[in-house]
């Protein structure tokens, strides 16, 4: 076994090239503790960087070059991730989970025409895409969505409400699954649409939530409610065929259940809490000498190592073309659950200061206070902890004669986008 990411001389040369390019192109951006604080100007800078990366094929490095990706192998993609990680950025350098997940579904299920139309826009960073899944009455039971569409000539008329959507500063596209057969059998009554956000009848309204965060470096900012009121969507935006939406969704759900996280991402919060403990005294003694603090920090460290290793295993397996079954959800479950343990460890180590966002007293410019909220919020997106357990059980074949098969992934994703 070899846990090292060792680069060849050609890869090292590429690393040098990427590093130099990023040094020239990455704009100065403030390190907001709360992603909602991202201003329109700062967002515009992120998008500009995205387009420039897209121009080089580095925005979606492992997606096929013919559609605007980089066509790069896993190692090259990793190098780009690693170098962006130094700036606390990822690919894309703004919230575009809809693009990451949606492009995979389009790769697998789209017609040639749809691939040629939608993919370059996403992969070159010309558009940002939101994913629309949850509804007020459909959370874990995603297949029960009631947003519906009726065929009207060559178009579909969509009506309904989606929640926990997107980010601040808008998006050019969104995709969603809607009910296209009111009386159809469950899982065979849904269709997957790629929808331009400027169509008449779409209203976006921010939600008031405990935290409006998202992924680091690609933070989402705000979550919205999106209303569809007789939105007319042309049939060419239907991907994967009518009433086949559940299978199309299977592709992006597979990725979302634990395959989104980058294998190289450092545990920033671990570094922050260790630094705090090393640089703080209590009662005249260094905090690190307190056995209780040591216990909390070691708990944090061990949790962090296990999460890292489970994701690393998944990444390495995919790099070797091995089909994952339960592993994605397992890593995701561990990540979610250990976020709560870590929050408790921070609360134990820092005391009430961990809860304060006041500019004078907040720890680490408010990052710690945001983490206290984020650890709660992290429990539900991409499927609750319980849903991850359901997936693990099905994939292991617990209590079943046959294991559930994973959703279909495009080659590029299998190999570790």
């Amino acid at each position, binding site marked *: 076994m070899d846990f090292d990411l060792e680069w060849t001389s050609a890869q090292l040369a590429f690393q040098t090239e990427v590093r130099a390019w990023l040094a020239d192109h990455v704009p100065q951006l403030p390190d907001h503790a709360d992603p909602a604080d991202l201003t329109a100007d700062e967002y515009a800078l992120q998008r500009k960087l995205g387009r420039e990366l897209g121009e080089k094929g580095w925005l979606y490095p492992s997606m096929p070059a013919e559609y605007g990706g980089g066509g790069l192998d896993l190692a090259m993609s990793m190098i780009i991730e690693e170098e962006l990680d130094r700036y606390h950025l990822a690919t894309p350098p703004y919230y575009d989970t809809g693009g990451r997940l949606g492009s995979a579904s389009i790769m697998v299920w789209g017609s040639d025409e749809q691939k040629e139309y939608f993919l370059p826009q996403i992969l070159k960073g010309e558009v940002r895409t939101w994913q629309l899944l949850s509804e007020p009455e459909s959370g874990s039971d995603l297949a029960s969505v009631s947003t519906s569409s009726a065929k009207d000539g060559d178009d579909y008329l969509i009506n309904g409400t989606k929640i926990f959507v997107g980010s601040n500063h808008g998006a050019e596209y969104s995709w969603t699954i809607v009910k296209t057969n009111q009386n159809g059998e469950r899982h065979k009554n849904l269709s997957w649409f790629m929808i331009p956000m400027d169509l008449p009848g779409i209203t976006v309204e921010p939600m008031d939530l405990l935290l409006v965060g998202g992924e680091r470096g690609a933070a989402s900012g705000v979550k919205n409610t999106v209303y569809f009121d007789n939105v007319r969507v042309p049939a060419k935006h239907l991907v994967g065929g009518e009433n086949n939406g559940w299978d199309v969704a299977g592709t992006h759900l597979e990725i979302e259940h634990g395959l989104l996280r980058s294998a190289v991402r450092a545990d920033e919060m671990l570094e922050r809490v260790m630094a705090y403990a090393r640089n703080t005294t209590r009662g005249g003694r260094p905090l690190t000498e307190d056995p209780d603090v040591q216990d909390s920090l070691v708990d944090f460290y*061990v949790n962090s*190592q296990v999460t890292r290793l489970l994701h690393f295993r998944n990444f390495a397996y995919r790099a070797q073309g091995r089909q994952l079954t339960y592993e994605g959800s397992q890593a995701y479950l561990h990540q979610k659950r250990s976020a709560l343990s870590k929050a408790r460890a921070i609360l134990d180590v820092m005391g009430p200061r961990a809860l304060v966002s006041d500019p004078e007293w907040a720890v680490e410019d408010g990052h710690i206070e945001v983490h206290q909220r984020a650890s709660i919020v992290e429990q539900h997106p991409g499927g609750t902890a319980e849903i991850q357990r359901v997936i693990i059980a099905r994939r292991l074949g617990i209590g*079943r004669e046959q294991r559930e098969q994973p959703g279909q992934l495009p080659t590029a994703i299998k190999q570790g986008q």
Partner: protein
Amino acid sequence: MDLTLTEQQMMLQSAVRELREREYTKETLVAIDAGVESTADHWPGLLSTGILGSLIPEEYGGVGASLADTAVVYEELGRGPVPGPHFSSGVLATLVLLEGGSDAQKRALLPGIASGERVFALAITEEDYGWGPEFIHTPARVRGDDLAIDGTKLYVHDATDATDLIVAARLETGKIGLVHVDAHGRGVAARALPGFATGLCELSLLQASVPRSSLIGGMEDGWDVLERAMRKASLILSAYQVGGLSQVFDMSLLYSQTRRQFEQPIGRFQRVQDHVIDVVNYLDAARWTTYEALWMADEAREGALAAMHTAAAVTSESYYYGCNSAHDVHAGIGIIREYGLTLHTKMSRTLYHYLGSPRYHRKRLAQALGL
């Protein structure tokens, strides 16, 4: 980056698996546990694979394999779990001799370990129990050319199977001495301790006398030698526990699929599923912390010590809790000795404190992280 076994490791794994399935069937393991059969009856089979010399360099009659290669063997043995002094002798004593023995001692003792002629047990802990030098009280006093040892060592693994012992004793200088003692010598008596543990013994030393040349490590403090040996041995022990846990998972998964209640497989119930999932989560946490720590140790990477303590803590906790969850899956069937799950439950308890408990390793981890 490559998280698969090498071809050679896979061959090794299947050779040991074949041996385990032939020599250590569940029925045999249950019989050994009940005292009806003894590990010694199956010792020749184990020897035939040459695994006792895995860590011993070729010049001393062994294979000279890496820790990771040796771990492949021990993970497979752990699946049994195959009891007996293979770890005490082939890993722990071997590493003590390699770390601290003089060339003469290595030449005199290691070939015998590799061939199985000599079986070593390590007597470290005592009634005042702990894994630090401060817990070693048994005195070894100089009597002319000899050392006389007097005291009781407790929770000594596999002492009743041993031909040779390495005893940690307090020298008159205050240092710790590691003394090679003939297990059948005068004043030496080993007694198996009955209870919910596998292979734990009491070792009485009553004016046991050995030549001063039996001291391993010469002038060096014996605890430093022991510490270096235990750091490596701990990784192999973790691999053994990973093997045990993976067997516990396989049993739990299969049982959830085949046991029917309320006219359906019990694994249909999410409450049962949760227990099986807990086992696989414990297993994979143990497996990957152990594998990475082994790799770091073999490659002498920075952070290898922290990785070893992480693996040791996670793995002992995982084996312990994983067995608990497996009992939740199996309910009454799980406590029927013949079924075999309790072999693991007992082993998970036996190894929980061995070479340091999870709490011990977490404290050492804090030190390794510079806290």
